[in-house]
């Protein structure tokens, strides 16, 4: 697929385990791994298997929220002799069931981390999010990986993600032989990626906050998958910010897309949509709308230098690919 991949080896590749194979990232990475020649054995762990992967991967039905999930996962990893684990069992959007969400994202991650340590895994790649830095008026224009993680207090899923990042850091310090990579993509967009963010920008008239015009970054879904693949291939420990090149103000993005904006004063909007947002995402509206107010732009230098990340799509191109795909699909 991509020419940037390392030269192909002849000896069989070590098996790769993917937790959360039902997610966008998990399913697509499984497919990409199966396309390699020779394909590595893909061990899929999830509650359900996407139909197009049936019979092509070794599927184990595992519920990460079970109290003994760690020993179950460890047993599977040992039996299949997995060397690499991709942990992608996270919600794409904030789940309104706060307790289940916490159980899956934090406790589930803890189980995967402990199982990896117990079963001789060599590399653990975790799909995190750049949203863990949080949008803040006192953010620097470019957030580096060393910047403090300050998720908004109101955003439960981001608090959980930041907790997972903390667990990973402790884990990496304890097990220095293990390569622990956490990928922090900014907003992923593309023709097929669906999330609360893409839905927010789908309509012809986008609600914005009166008087605010933040700089935004986007990452194309193919660049995201490339980055995950790179992380699985190369040994690059640490956290990596991922984003497309360039930044653009929200108003310019909307104008490029031919959309109009509906600027509303934020105190009004925050109050008016409070109950609706709580019911839909479990968080007050500030959890999402603050991104349309304050600075939240990441620096991808480290990913370029150490991971070899080289996105094909710039922020503008990624955004336009989302817009064009949605237009064809009948949204305006």
């Amino acid at each position: 697929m991509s020419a940037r991949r390392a030269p192909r080896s002849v000896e069989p590749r070590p098996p790769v385990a993917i937790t959360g194979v039902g997610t966008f990232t998990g399913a697509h990475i499984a497919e990409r791994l199966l396309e390699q020649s020779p394909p590595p054995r893909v061990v899929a762990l999830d509650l359900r298997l996407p139909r197009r992967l049936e019979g092509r991967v070794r599927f184990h039905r595992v519920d990460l929220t079970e109290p003994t999930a760690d020993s179950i996962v460890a047993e599977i990893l040992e039996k299949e002799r997995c060397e690499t684990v991709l942990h992608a069992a996270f919600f794409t959007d904030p789940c309104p069931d706060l307790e289940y969400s916490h159980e899956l994202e934090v406790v589930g991650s803890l189980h995967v981390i402990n199982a990896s340590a117990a079963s001789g895994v060599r590399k653990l790649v975790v799909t995190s999010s750049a949203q863990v830095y949080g949008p803040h008026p006192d953010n620097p224009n470019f957030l580096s990986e060393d910047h403090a993680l300050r998720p908004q207090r109101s955003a439960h899923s981001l608090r959980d993600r930041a907790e997972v990042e903390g667990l990973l850091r402790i884990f990496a310090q304890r097990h220095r032989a293990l390569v622990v990579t956490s990928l922090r993509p900014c907003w992923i967009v593309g023709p097929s990626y669906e999330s609360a963010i893409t839905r927010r920008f789908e309509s012809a008239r986008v609600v914005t906050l009166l008087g605010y015009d933040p700089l935004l970054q986007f990452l194309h879904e193919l660049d995201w998958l490339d980055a995950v693949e790179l992380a699985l291939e190369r040994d690059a420990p640490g956290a990596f910010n991922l984003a497309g090149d360039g930044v653009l103000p929200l108003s310019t993005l909307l104008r490029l897309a031919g959309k109009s904006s509906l600027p509303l004063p934020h105190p009004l909007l925050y109050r008016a949509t409070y109950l609706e947002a709580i019911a839909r995402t479990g968080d007050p509206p500030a959890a999402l709308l603050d991104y349309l107010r304050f600075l939240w732009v990441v620096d991808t230098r480290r990913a370029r230098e150490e991971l070899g990340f080289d996105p094909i799509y710039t922020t503008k191109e990624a955004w336009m690919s989302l817009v064009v795909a949605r237009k064809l699909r009948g949204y305006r």
Partner: protein
Amino acid sequence: MSDAKPPAEGGPIRSEALAELRASVRALRGELEQRFGIRDTPPPAPDSVDDFGPELAAPAAQTSPGWFEGIGRRLRARLEDLDVVKLYEALRERVSIPGAADVSAEVDEFGLDERYLLRARGWLDWLFEYWWRVQVSGIELVPDADRVLFVANTAGILPWDALMLAHAVERLHPSGRRPRPLVADWLATLPFSQSRLARMGAVRACAENAERLLLADQWVIAFPEGQKGALKPFRERYRLQRFARGGFVPLAARLRAAIVPVAIVGAEELYPILFEPRLLRRLVGVPVPITPTFPLLGPLGIIPLPSQWRIRFGEPIWFDDVAPERVTDPLYVNRTREQVRGAIQALLEEELPRRRSIFS
């Protein structure tokens, strides 16, 4: 349209053109009839002009070409030239996204929009020449180096001083470079200001941003007095506050940037702040300064006083021969910081008596 030419003049040309048109229409109609059997209108009677609309067949207009007729004809020609689709697009662009008219599709990594800046240049020039009548001295002292850090005094709530200083350097320095001002944090939370300032090149003041800008060989303007300076009461004007963070000295020393002290006289009278209640700040979340005009006259209170400005550049301070281990020495940093502060204060003391009143 083919009838842009007034029908009154040039009889033969008109009849030739008419004959041609008539022939082509007849041919088209014939083809339609033959191919699709369409016969919606009766075939034209020979030499009847009525088919071609009332414009050509208005003999009354030809006989008395009055003044109104002339206007009407010209207006009609204008309207016919008008591209309705284009007009609609232009209107939609301007109306649908306020403030996004005439922005380019690219900004630099800190949000500077060249096209927006170009458009703003007109009124920046006007502010510079007529509103504040800025007099600049000592611009020849500004070195033509890769990295220059301007350090200036600040006052007034909105960063007019930053805009004018950047504008002065761009207009008068031979390199034509435009330094990028670092503006206070709280402006980032203030609606309407941040997006416009960012488009004009301003960046939030923090060490990471300053370092990134200097590493990219950009010129930077810092106001180390910070918020304390911006909100200082009127009675303390031109008295430099403590340099709040002062991180600019180790930064400039580490990156070998020249520090140019700048005194701005006139900007400290823009908004004479009487007081700034703590309680109100806590309630609203951003500082609310009370000036003679501000909450009283509503938005009119934002109009800055047209005082007369003097911008004076001082001798640059170089760090080329500073040993790397001294850069982190707190005593050295503090001494240099006070040196810069003293230089600016001295420039202010020199410039202040030179003006007769704040308006001249």
